[in-house]
């Protein structure tokens, strides 16, 4: 059973057995507009919490996607190369960006749960 956490930068991470799947939230994709390109990290890359992990390019601008937790990138979503629009259509599932093997699971305590994130985005107006 996976646990899902959220960052204030609108990333989500779904953690199961020490590996987190990371994407951007539906709120984030609606703010961005049509996604035309995603630049993913290399498999094997070591990331520290809050490092720039990926770049998501919309028609108007590029935005950085950060690492919600520290760890090693173990897989990336190759399908996004051909269909970056999946990020818009299915941000919270098929539009995942990369999977990271957590090096510091306690970092998850810094993140929000679903309810807290919903309250957070409502507060953004």
């Amino acid at each position: 059973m996976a646990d899902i956490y959220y960052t204030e930068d609108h990333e989500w991470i779904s953690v199961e057995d020490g590996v987190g799947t990371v994407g951007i939230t539906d709120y984030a994709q609606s703010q961005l507009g049509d996604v035309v390109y995603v630049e993913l990290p290399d498999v094997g890359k070591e990331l520290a919490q809050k490092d720039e992990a990926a770049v998501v390019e919309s028609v108007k601008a590029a935005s950085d996607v950060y690492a919600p937790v520290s760890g090693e990138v173990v897989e990336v979503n190759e399908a996004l190369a051909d269909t970056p629009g999946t990020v818009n259509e299915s941000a919270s599932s098929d539009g995942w960006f990369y999977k990271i093997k957590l090096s510091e699971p306690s970092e998850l305590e810094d993140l929000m749960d679903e309810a807290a994130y919903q309250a957070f985005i409502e507060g953004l107006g």
Partner: protein
Amino acid sequence: MSQSPDATNAAPLKTTPLDALHRELGGKMVPFAGYDMPVQYPAGIVKEHLHTRAKASLFDVSHMGQVRLLGDAAVAALEALVPGDLQALKPMRMRYTMFTDDKAGILDDLMVTRVEDGLFVVVNASCKEADIAHMRAGLPKGVSVEYLDDRALLALQGPAAVDVMARLAGEAVRTMPFMSAADIDVGGFACFVTRSGYTGEDGFEISVASADADAFARRLLAEAEVEPAGLGARDSLRLEAGLCLYGHDIDTTTSPIEAGLVWTISKRRREAGGFPGAAVIQDQLANGVTRKRVGIRPEGRVVAREHTAIVDAGGSPIGEITSGGFGPSAGGPVGMGYVATDSAQVGMDVSLLVRGAPRPAQVAAMPFVPHGYFKGK
């Protein structure tokens, strides 16, 4: 994920007569040239762009400056400020030209239409005040410069635009030549219509009284082919069409020759001069320029935006992107910029420095998507 910073403006934003309509349509409003304008509607930039090339889109461009120059001397007088051949313009015909300065830099680009009692000029919103002051200072007293702040401007663009116009204004509009103008009734509204636009497609720009603008726009949107489109799509359309955006691809540091706009200066005016910067332009025509505006086509999918450095195969800097983005009709990233003349050859391999890494690209011919202008006489 990083978010674009909110633009905070000290002065309240101006609105066009279609502001309420934009909000009703779900327009995402952003500041542009001091106006609150829709960058997109719920369909999104890509769909709005593609719809324009497939059917017809309606753009609000009322933020642009509509100016009337009155007086018999207007045509010859305005020629003192622009390199364009206005004396050759027949009545109700128009052309694209620019205000130049003494160094042959470009102060703004504009459309000039010859009308019965003078000229009708459309200038960019960001340069509106400066352009009007420039004309008032540079034109003789006998030519009055009237800013038409009680008029809206709408652009109906796309291959189906003519069908919509024919339905609302009569079949005669089908044979309106490209770059011509007419005073006609469109759907019951008195309009000044030009067959022109800035998307690379066939289409019309329609000037209507501000008081009529909301009802007129709704009338057009009621037609099956027409969808609203915002400034985001307007930008991606003109970029694919190879058209310059003032303040980005052309400005006071670029001459019309460097910008590849020599076609806007007729032989008579090239030889006779009589506009600011004429001597510089004549020199550049005789001796060449050190840099040229070209199309740039990145390989792959990485978008290279404004200010991206361009380097040659050996890694030496040769220029800079001035406009870049994703081209939905082109199916990938497109851009334009200036490169050293030696490198300004279609097909030449270059690299673009995006996020610190070189990305392969080629100098490309423009437009990236063929123009759809009406070719009938």
